[in-house]
């Protein structure tokens, strides 16, 4: 599976994503600068975390107009796998690839810590290696991660099983205390209806080495790899 890691001015988790991806047998990964206009030859595209364009206007608002975004739209329509992490999630929402948006954390704090996620759906290309209800421990690092959408959108997300991850406590309970940013319905990650585009605030690429505090992020990339292999065969 050939992965592109998009690089916007201000991306800062691009190299982390690259290193994490390259630790999987069967994945190759390459950085792609935002001025590029083609994603031909790639099977999956990662939008990494960071502060694209200094978060000016709103997080992700300006990256949306980068030349590479047209190619991303085409890749999305072709059914390629697209994963937006943190700022990448914000960009996907701003660009209309995913519904809703991410606003300032409810308590205004920049939260940099470990969180526990409950896997809500495992029939997606990004979670098929997880069991339903499985708990994953991942890191977050964001000031604007409070997922917000209108009532109709929230209802549709539920109806079409698009909520993949929710913040929970270590028993899997969706408590307010376990919600680090005030996200509606404890939402940490969602997908589109076609299930080939996912955005999440926590960083799976930072949880791919036992030495660095955990390997739960590997489930996400292994799922993508397995889904891709399934398509190939």
């Amino acid at each position, binding site marked *: 599976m050939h992965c592109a890691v998009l690089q916007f001015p201000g991306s800062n988790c691009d190299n982390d994503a690259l290193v994490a991806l390259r630790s999987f047998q069967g994945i190759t990964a390459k950085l792609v600068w935002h001025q590029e206009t083609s994603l031909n030859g790639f099977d999956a595209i990662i939008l990494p975390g960071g502060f694209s364009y200094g978060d000016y*206007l*709103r997080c992700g*608002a*300006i990256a949306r*107009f980068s030349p590479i975004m047209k190619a991303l739209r085409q890749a999305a329509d072709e059914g390629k796998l697209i994963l937006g992490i943190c700022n990448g999630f914000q960009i996907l*929402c*701003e660009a209309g690839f995913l519904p*809703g*948006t991410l*606003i*300032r*954390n*409810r*308590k*205004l704090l920049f939260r940099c810590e470990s969180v526990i996620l409950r896997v809500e759906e495992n029939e997606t290309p990004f979670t098929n290696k997880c069991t339903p209800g499985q708990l994953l421990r991942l890191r977050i690092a964001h000031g604007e991660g*409070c997922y*917000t*959408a*209108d009532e109709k959108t929230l209802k549709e997300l539920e109806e079409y099983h698009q909520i993949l991850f929710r913040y929970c406590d270590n028993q899997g309970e969706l408590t307010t205390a376990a919600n680090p940013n*005030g996200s509606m319905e404890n939402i940490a990650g969602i997908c589109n209806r076609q299930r080939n585009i996912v955005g999440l605030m926590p960083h799976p690429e930072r949880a791919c080495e036992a030495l660095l505090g955990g390997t739960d992020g590997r489930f996400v990339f292994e799922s993508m790899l397995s889904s891709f292999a399934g398509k190939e065969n």
Partner: protein
Amino acid sequence: MKARVTIMPQAAVLDPAGVATAQAIEHLGINGVRSVRIGKSIDLDIEGATQEQLHQICRDLLSNPVIEDYHLEILS
């Protein structure tokens, strides 16, 4: 054409910065704060822009219709 765009969070959307500022006003010793909402004001000067183009800029770039409303004021 010169224009001023005011962008405000929609009434139903949580504005944590506004809430924190409301608390700060109380700490200043002034009670009775009913609401504080924080938005932004953007001045534009664009040669030959039509009103429709200005609205497009507001809609597609300056504001996010999921959480914000904008008001466009033509200055000259």
